[in-house]
């Protein structure tokens, strides 16, 4: 255990020790098995009275059924991008897709993701709710083709307390091809022949919906860290596999772990080998083999361990629209996609710029790297936020060149989901009580 580990070990125990062994309150089980609806009386203490006001406000919002529009949010902190045109105007101009799908738990216990909800980009209106095909099923993630009408859903059975196996992530996945009609309503849902019985760390439908790429850890539970990308041709079921030791994605179904360029054969994937993390471009026209061999090339190297080690990939004030330092946590390696024209990698980033006992200042925004040179092309949509809940922006969709993206950015607690163009940010309307982290698949 090194010095830092000892500090963590010691500090957590010191705080834990403030709870005395005889200070545990009795368990209050519900008489009827219902969810415990009322917080303890402590929450009604004067110091928390303001929180009750918030609760009343939220209830009132629910009763009226009002959408939580971004325009109603508190003003952004200094450094926030200017307000952009309305979402509807972006949709009308064909600059962003009209529909998207979000995955929500709809209030299920333990935030179990269960439903895929089709919504309009312009207003956030729910068009359809798609439920799992099996009891205790959950829809974990969604990927989209370029037409904004074709999606693939990743379904899994949720591990219940009596579930077989010990790791939710290893339970089998099933994939469903969903097609929407021109009104955004589901017209067909077809189960695809391929399955994944191991940890899925990312998946992406090709722009023409002909191929599905799945990143898996085939030997989950062992220390080999073998990582595979499997590319399936939907029409024939043919499969190609590339593999290497390393990590793709931070966790299961990472939205930005793998993404396709519009050419339909270039697949971008982020890859970490414990020392450094970068984005590689894989030519999926090849027959399979090594993930980091002759079929692919390293396009962008992110700074993970040593800021000075990779100067070419660092945001610099000279390259940025305005100075942005990302002092402590860059986070680009957690979330990045290739622009459809293949010219750039866009990532959501953020960093803490000052730290006080009960507050922190964060700079967050989007960074665009050239796939040709690996260097930063621009930084956009950045803002400074005090006390944000998250520390980094999150990119979810990009237009062909990266000039318009959809993503979330830390602000007002859970952050905001919106359209970013140049240095304008247009919040998208979300239904009340939308669960964080905000996301969607376009």
């Amino acid at each position, binding site marked *: 255990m090194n010095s*830092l580990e000892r*500090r*963590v*070990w010691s500090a*957590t125990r*010191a*705080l*834990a020790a*403030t*709870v005395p062994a005889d*200070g*545990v309150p009795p*368990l209050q*089980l*519900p008489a009827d098995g219902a969810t415990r609806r009322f917080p*303890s009386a*402590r*929450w009604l203490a004067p110091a928390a009275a303001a*929180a009750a006001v*918030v609760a009343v406000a939220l209830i009132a919002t629910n009763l009226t059924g009002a959408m939580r529009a971004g325009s109603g949010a*508190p003003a952004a902190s200094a450094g926030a991008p200017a307000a952009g045109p309305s979402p509807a105007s972006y949709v009308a101009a064909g600059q962003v897709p009209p529909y998207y799908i979000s995955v929500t738990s*709809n209030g299920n216990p*333990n*935030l179990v993701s*269960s439903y895929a909800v089709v919504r309009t980009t312009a207003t956030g209106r729910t068009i359809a*709710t*798609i439920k799992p095909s099996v009891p205790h099923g959950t829809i974990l993630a969604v990927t989209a083709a370029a037409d904004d009408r074709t999606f693939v859903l990743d379904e899994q059975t949720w591990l*219940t*307390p*009596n579930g077989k196996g*010990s*790791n*939710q*992530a*290893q339970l089998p996945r099933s994939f*469903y091809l*969903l097609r929407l009609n021109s009104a955004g309503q*589901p017209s067909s*849902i077809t189960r695809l022949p391929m399955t994944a019985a191991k*940890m899925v*760390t990312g998946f992406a439908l090709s722009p023409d919906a002909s191929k599905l790429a799945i990143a898996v850890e085939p030997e*989950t*539970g062992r220390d080999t*860290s073998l990582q595979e990308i499997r590319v399936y041709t939907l029409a024939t079921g043919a499969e190609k596999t590339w593999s290497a030791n390393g990590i793709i994605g931070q*966790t*299961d179904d990472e939205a930005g772990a793998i993404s396709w360029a519009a050419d339909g054969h270039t697949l971008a994937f982020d890859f970490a080998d*414990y020392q450094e993390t970068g984005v590689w471009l894989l030519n999926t026209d090849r027959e399979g083999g090594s993930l980091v061999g002759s079929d692919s090339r390293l396009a962008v190297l992110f700074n*993970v*361990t040593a800021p000075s080690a990779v100067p070419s990939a660092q945001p610099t004030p000279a390259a940025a629209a305005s100075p942005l330092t990302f002092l*402590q946590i860059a986070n680009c390696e957690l979330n990045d996609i290739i622009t459809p024209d293949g010219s750039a990698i866009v990532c959501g980033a953020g960093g*803490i710029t000052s*730290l006080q*006992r009960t507050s*922190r200042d964060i700079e967050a925004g989007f960074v665009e790297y050239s796939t040709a040179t690996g260097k930063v092309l621009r930084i956009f949509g950045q803002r400074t936020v005090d006390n944000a*809940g*998250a*520390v980094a922006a999150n990119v979810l969709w990009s237009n062909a060149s990266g000039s318009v993206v959809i993503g979330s950015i830390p602000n*007002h*607690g*859970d952050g905001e989901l919106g359209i970013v163009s140049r240095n304008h940010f247009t919040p998208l309307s979300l239904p009340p009580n939308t669960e964080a982290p905000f996301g969607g698949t376009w």
Partner: protein
Amino acid sequence: MRTDTTDPPRAAPEDAGTAVTALYQAHSLGLIRLAVIMLGDRPSAEDVVQDAFCGLYRRWRTLADTEKALSYVRSSVLNGARTVLRRRTRGRFENAGFDEPAESAESLALVSEEHRQVLAGIRLLPDRQREALILRYYLDLNEEQIAATMGISRGTVKSTTSRGLAALGRILGETA
């Protein structure tokens, strides 16, 4: 798959009070302490643990392997703490003037300045990194146990822990 909007089936309650209460008596202190580390204040921690055991109670009928109960309720505590943190930060922004401290004064008064700095740094980490570090260094769980609790692979536990330590080191000005 279906496109209706009916709620999914929920487990019916059964007479499980004795078993769940026994589990609570055996593990509630450790879980409240875990939640205090996650949340920084005891009242919220106690609420999260109460809710976790209530959830276990509702699902007890479907619990075939009681040895999994602790792992299950531990995961529920983590999820509950995550929800509280999000609700807390949301409330801070949506209600001007409401500024709930990250750590309660009562708790902070009992730990040293050095520990406060480390705890403040831990609270700045992304959810998964914070949880992985606490499970590893407070609960002394191994990678397999952390993977089961967080529902992620061992490889991801390793990378998440490594990145969390590196980020914490940068925040505290120390090399991980």
